[in-house]
């Protein structure tokens, strides 16, 4: 009798066929379209673009559909596709100060140039399930006004003019931009790589890490200096023509946290920065990111590194959900060869233990 599992090839094919069937669900119900996902599950698509590191709503919508709504699986699909794309270079830094804002709030000032703009937010909704949405429902058109578009300076720039917040670190504009998808990460990592890692990091992981700093594990007294959501222009320096060429607009969320003071007898005290940036409307993500970015600056700011969120190796090595889910879920793969080896060792140890006990039953009792 030989009962080992065989026929894996057919089993895989049948499993994939069943998966496709389950993904489709009840065939009497109309199939969901990519534009429906892109338009009506906007925030899911934003998350997949952010953590998938690829700004393409259509591909992200396809990934959400193919992944049956499992966003980490969708992120994985997008990442695997992205990895095959050639890289032409890096764009110019986007100027979020020139963002066409749809939402912009500051918790540090009652009012400020450009105003507080609530925009499309869940913030002050009552979380009551809305029975209207069980059926097709066309909401009212949004309120509009003719207010001319005015510049909305960043809160950190306003504070920065008086030196109340540390300046953003100036980097050499000619220096190459780090990219952890092209160069393996090594520690200690520079802040550009840290921010890239955090921008790609799992939202839930960052949320928990950021939350832990608020509860005392690496506390850094944050204020939400500003959160802004809107469209920014992306420009690429074309070597041939010698100037930056606009590539188009992308939607982004930026969060700048204003954090606890630094300063000493010899250094003027000022607030410190924590920064978060993501594609689309990703407010929770960018706020968490800004908290963790600030926590990870502990070494640079001469603070004691005691909490997990301040530990660069810990945070950066475990923040990527594609890596994490792969390694956790690989435990599903067969491990029977290693298990057999452990089983052999365990049986040997148990046998020797039993022999020792038989040889001298009193000794064991005495121990």
């Amino acid at each position, binding site marked *: 009798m030989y009962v080992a599992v065989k026929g894996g*090839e057919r089993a*895989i094919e049948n499993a994939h066929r069943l998966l496709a069937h389950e993904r489709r669900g009840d065939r009497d119900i109309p199939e969901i379209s990519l534009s429906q996902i892109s338009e009506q599950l906007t925030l899911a698509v934003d998350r997949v673009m952010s953590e998938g590191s690829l700004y393409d709503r259509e591909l992200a919508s396809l990934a959400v559909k193919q992944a049956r709504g499992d966003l980490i699986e969708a992120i994985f699909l997008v990442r695997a596709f992205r990895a095959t794309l050639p890289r032409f270079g890096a764009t110019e830094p986007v100027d979020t100060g020139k963002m066409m804002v749809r939402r912009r709030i500051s918790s540090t000032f009652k009012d400020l140039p450009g105003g507080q703009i609530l925009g499309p937010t869940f913030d002050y909704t009552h979380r009551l399930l809305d029975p209207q949405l069980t059926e097709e429902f066309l909401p009212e058109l949004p309120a509009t006004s003719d207010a001319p578009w005015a510049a909305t300076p960043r809160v950190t720039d306003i504070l920065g003019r008086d030196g109340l917040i540390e300046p953003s670190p100036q980097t050499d504009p000619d220096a190459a931009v780090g990219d952890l998808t092209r160069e393996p990460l*090594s520690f200690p990592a520079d802040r550009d790589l840290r921010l890239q890692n955090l921008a790609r990091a799992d939202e839930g992981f960052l949320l928990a890490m950021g939350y832990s700093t608020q509860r005392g594990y690496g506390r850094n007294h944050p204020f939400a200096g500003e959160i802004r959501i809107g469209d920014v222009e992306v420009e690429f320096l074309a070597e041939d023509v010698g100037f930056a060429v606009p590539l188009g607009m992308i939607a982004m969320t930026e969060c700048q946290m204003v954090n606890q003071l630094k300063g000493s007898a010899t250094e003027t005290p000022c607030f410190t920065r924590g920064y978060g940036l993501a594609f689309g409307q990703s407010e929770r993500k960018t706020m968490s990111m800004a908290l963790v970015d600030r926590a990870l600056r502990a070494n640079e700011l001469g603070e004691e590194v005691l909490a997990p969120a301040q530990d660069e*190796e810990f945070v950066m090595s475990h923040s990527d959900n594609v890596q994490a889910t792969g390694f956790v879920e690989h435990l599903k793969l067969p491990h029977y060869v*290693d298990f057999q080896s452990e089983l052999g060792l365990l049986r040997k140890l148990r046998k020797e233990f039993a022999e020792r006990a038989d040889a001298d039953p009193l000794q064991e009792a005495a121990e």
Partner: protein
Amino acid sequence: MSTPAYNFAYLDEQTKRMIRRAILKAIAIPGYQVPFASREMPMPYGWGTGGVQVTAAILGPNDVLKVIDQGSDDTTNAISIRKFFAKTAGVATTTSTTDATVIQTRHRIPEAPLHAGQVLVYQVPIPEPLRFLEPRETETRRMHALAEYGLMHVKLYEDIARFGHIATAYAYPVKVNARYVMDPSPTPKFDNPKMDNCAALQLFGAGREKRIYAIPPYTKVVSLDFEDHPFTRYRFDAPCALCGAEEAYLDEIVTDDSGGRMFVCSDTDFCERRQAAGHRGLESAAPHKERAHG
């Protein structure tokens, strides 16, 4: 929407060149873990993305590929990876250890001796042998640089003090070319001696951890031990129930719910060849009903 078109063996040539450079460096410094810019592959981390990238980087159109998992060509993940390369590279595949030019493996080294010109590609989950003693990469890299391996010997000694044996049954650490302590990937320690002075090139790929390392052909590989507690291979009490092999690593198959067990070769190609050559174990098993491919 742009329809994806993929290069030979999936990876683009730039990525392959980057991986080949890492491989060359790894061969030049046996046992040293070379960081490389691992890509997201279309299978999950932990499923062999490091091995797949190494294989993709070295595969040529005339190569013959064999993929095993747990020693078997017919386990689901081995099938999946073999099909991936059959599809993306169009290379010939085989289950024969001897006929293959590239063998990608997870958790085993084939029983049949490898010959010169072959490449054995290991899938590696945790490349750092010191990881469970020291979680920090900054620390372990320093320890390797200084060849500071005392911690590992203390761990092995503590095993002996507690259990009377070194309680590591797989991923048993080795020293390569009398310099670097290396993790052989989670192969059972039964396989460790096969790495020593091996005629084939051995390449190790860890995708999630972004490391590649290598053992060039005919390199000295020593399993760590003590003079008074020498390294020993795990021995099975019984020969293979199908082919009667005495010197092969065996899988334990649970045959019923009242303690019934049988032991059969984990290396299915080795076992089938022995059966074809007329070797028989105590069980008269039917040959495997379904071949892994074809």
